[in-house]
């Protein structure tokens, strides 16, 4: 039996004081009785060390919002409110909850667990409009992360044959295309900001430990940890490299031939005559896998079809940071009016996947999907919608305590000093984050009774889509068909 893939997580505390969900204020008429310190089990309230007669300022970031001190205070002089800094984190897509939960996972490497039921809206847009299925009794299921059965998260990047041909001696005659195995369906995408040497260093270390890949813009010249060593040694490092150089406008720009030669995979920006460059790279290094980076937008399914027929084995479909597609697509509403609207990767991935399935060429190409992958659940859901694997960006910065304040985009100082991050510390935080994400993926797979993530791809039967279930059940319930039999 092959060695189990295991991500070792090591608790790695943040460098800065965390941002608390709540703020607590002690009023002027506090009598320093210390009741709050007794009832608080999170050590928010303490006496002042230098003067035990008075209470210290509350350590607000520890507050978990249980209201005990508020309700027990004999003078009713404590006030609680939602944390101002907390509620200002991120934006409407990258919500404070998403940022905070990624921080927690980067620190602890643990799956976020909590008590009480789900607290959020019934459903929402995109991935929030689908639920994953589970199997109840009859399908043998594994125990998720606590089980003894091994659930595989390996995905293969490259072309897969629908069937293998044998000759009369039983020898394989089909040429088997080479594939790259990645032990988990997550690779690191280019960062929207925070592109500092040490951040890249952390990403490269984490990618190497996890045995996954990181895409780097070739123009930025980051060639991994080995770039300073010259000569033969350098090439050896590259071959073990977990970098995927990304080449923009490859038909115009040149590229470092030595480097391309040494990489397992290269990503090219989509252009109409990209095939010329593809062939050039293939000639240079026939072993290289080539991915073409295509924006989700109008006619993306057509482009994917064309590239696949042309022989491209990997296509990286990307949306914007919030998982919205570029440009507006023509949509027809219920009353047959057409209008233009950005779509979300949940729907677009399904469209592309189905198109390829209809053409019977789905396994000719590997689809990497990125843009707005913010939580572990998005990985599973993107795969259900038809992706083979996903690429992530912002969550890696969250692992480094990024608050997504967007200060850096306005040339203001970074509150968590991203460019001073220690690469070792950063790498461990990213490893923790991915370890927690992977465990959550295992939980979902276990609940569905699946033993490998490859089987999840396009398994829409293992998902419940809001629009379908609403129609299926509530059309009947609220349908104006009358049924008066009381007890059915």
């Amino acid at each position, binding site marked *: 039996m092959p060695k189990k893939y295991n991500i070792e997580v090591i608790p790695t505390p943040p460098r800065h004081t965390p941002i608390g969900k709540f703020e607590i204020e002690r009023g002027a008429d506090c009598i320093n009785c210390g009741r709050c310190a007794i009832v608080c089990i999170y050590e928010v309230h303490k006496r002042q060390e230098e003067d035990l007669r008075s209470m210290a300022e509350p350590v607000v970031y520890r507050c978990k919002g249980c209201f005990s001190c508020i309700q027990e205070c004999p003078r009713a002089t404590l006030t609680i409110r939602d944390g101002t800094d907390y509620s200002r984190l991120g934006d409407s897509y990258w919500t404070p909850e998403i940022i905070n939960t990624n921080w927690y996972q980067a620190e602890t490497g643990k799956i976020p667990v*909590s*008590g009480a039921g789900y607290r959020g*809206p019934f459903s929402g847009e995109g991935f929030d409009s689908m639920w994953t299925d589970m199997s109840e009794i009859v399908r043998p299921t594994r125990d998720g992360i606590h089980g003894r059965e091994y659930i595989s998260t390996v995905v293969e990047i490259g072309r897969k044959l629908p069937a293998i041909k044998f000759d009369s001696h039983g020898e394989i005659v089909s040429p088997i295309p080479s594939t790259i195995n990645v032990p988990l369906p997550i690779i690191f995408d280019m960062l929207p900001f925070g592109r500092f040497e040490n951040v890249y260093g952390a990403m490269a270390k984490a990618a190497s430990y996890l045995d996954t890949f990181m895409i780097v813009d070739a123009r930025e010249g980051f060639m991994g940890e080995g770039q300073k060593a010259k000569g033969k040694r350098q090439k050896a490092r590259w071959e073990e490299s977990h970098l995927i150089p990304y080449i923009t406008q490859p038909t115009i720009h040149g590229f470092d031939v030595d480097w391309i030669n040494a990489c397992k995979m290269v990503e090219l920006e989509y252009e109409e005559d990209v095939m010329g460059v593809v062939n050039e790279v293939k000639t240079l290094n026939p072993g290289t896998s080539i991915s073409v980076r295509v924006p989700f937008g109008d006619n993306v399914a057509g482009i994917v079809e064309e590239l696949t027929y042309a022989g491209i084995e990997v296509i990286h479909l990307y949306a914007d940071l919030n998982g919205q597609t570029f440009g507006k697509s023509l949509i027809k509403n219920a009353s047959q009016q057409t209008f233009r609207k950005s779509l979300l990767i949940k729907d677009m991935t399904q469209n592309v996947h189905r198109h390829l399935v209809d053409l019977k060429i789905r396994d000719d190409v590997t689809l990497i999907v990125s843009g707005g992958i913010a939580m572990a659940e998005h990985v599973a859901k993107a795969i259900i919608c038809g992706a083979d694997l996903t690429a992530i960006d912002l969550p890696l910065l969250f692992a480094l305590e990024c608050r997504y304040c967007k200060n850096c985009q306005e040339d203001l100082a970074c509150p968590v000093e991203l460019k001073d991050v220690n690469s070792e510390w950063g790498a461990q935080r990213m490893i923790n984050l991915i370890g927690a994400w992977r465990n959550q993926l295992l939980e979902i797979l276990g609940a569905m009774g699946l033993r490998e993530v490859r089987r999840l791809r396009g398994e829409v039967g293992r998902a419940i889509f809001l629009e379908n279930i609403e129609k299926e059940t509530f059309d009947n319930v609220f349908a104006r068909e009358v049924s008066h039999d009381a007890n059915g």
Partner: protein
Amino acid sequence: MPTVKKAPSRFPNEISEIEVTRDVSKCISCGTCAKVCPFGVHERKTGYNRVSKPLSYLCIGTSCEDKPFYCVNHCPREALSLGVSSEYRTIGDYRWTRDLIIGTWKQAETGIPLKGQRYEIGNSGGGFDRISFNFQDSEGRGEMGGEDMARTSHLTPHTSGAISTEIELNKREGKKLSIKVPFYGGGMSFGSVSLSVMLAKAKAARAWSTFTCTGEGGYPEALKEYDDNVITQVATGLFGVMEDTIQRVKIVEFKYAQGAKPGLGGHLLGDKVTVEVARMREAVEGSSLFSPFPFHSVYSVEDHKKHLDWIKELNPDAIVSVKVSTPTDVDMVAVGSYYAGANIIHLDGSYGGTGAAPDIAKKNIAMPIEYAIPKVHEFLKLEGLRDTMTIIASGGIRTAHDALKAIALGADGVVIGTVELVALGCVRCGNCESGRGCPRGIATTDPELSKAIDLEWGAQRLINLYAAWRSEIVDVLKRFGMKSIKELVGRYDCLIENHEITQD
């Protein structure tokens, strides 16, 4: 019917919407406010010069403005003012809004149902929160066209006669069993909640002739006097399951899955496995207990039947309930359970409560109960089994209105859990799982913290809550012109979809 007795909050400062502020720099302690306020917001205790801090939660709010006893108008120094409290703005979430939490507290205190949309639905924007009752009386909120009016014109309110809220739990052959209210208490194990919470639930269940459930953590000795109102749970971990516990009860519940963590076993994190909990579960103190998923002895309906036969062998009179989560094939599961011999199919929807579950599971796995109920109801009808199976729904039943909607969607009754804990003072902070457990002393077995809940007080709060729910249920049935809750089952025509509902 059990007696409703006032059971006020155990905290000196109850959280409420309105905050009455007294500016102490202006107040001259004349005591006028204490004299005028009929609700006891202001009080000057005998022997004291100063008026006590206002008890804001007793205040009726801005509706007092035009009353002759409005303290703000009477104060000679204009030292008093009303405002929205900061606590009120902070508490609550989409599913359990601030008003649902505070409203539940009030009902548990007084036993009187609260009227108004904000006490009836949450703010989740879907499911129960987007369904309204299709009342046809003058107060009706339904907005319908002529066709709809014709469809429901037979629904005329009647006021005379007693209205029954009793439901049957066993519709198959064998011993009949019914409960007086269409709800019973959900499984919460010893370990996930304190013993006094379990006992308070059992006591309230006995008072109302309904049931409570042990959860999967064993059957504490102290629960034995409530045997006739206790459901013992057999879950995948089989913690504390013994022949004796199966033989002493009237209902045995098989927990295949839980709505909050479908496809995952129970979670009791190490910190909560105290000496007593470990002894009850025959486990090791301090070590996390993760139940397996699923029953590893059940991979088919035949295996399932074998389990049920085993129960019936031990306790031939037992009613067997099968608790499942809500996957896409939940309807098939329900039919399978029927053929295995179950009396009750208990559907636990995906937004249900829990002592600890991965967040990813709570939000994403399996479908909300609102979809599962009609799905199973319709399928059982098609199979001709609806009259022999009892459908019980849970997983996000927060109010009497949710319960009624679940029944109108096709359930016979509901199971409640979170709302009971809220009645006992839960603020839904969600920290039940870690460290010493619940900071409010409810979902904890910490010897210090669990003292916070007094058994008698807790039982009274639950009795009051049940009373409030029952009155509300009776009231709605009356408006529909029904004499029994059984008439409401599967009456889709009593519901309308309301796209307009938004709060805040």
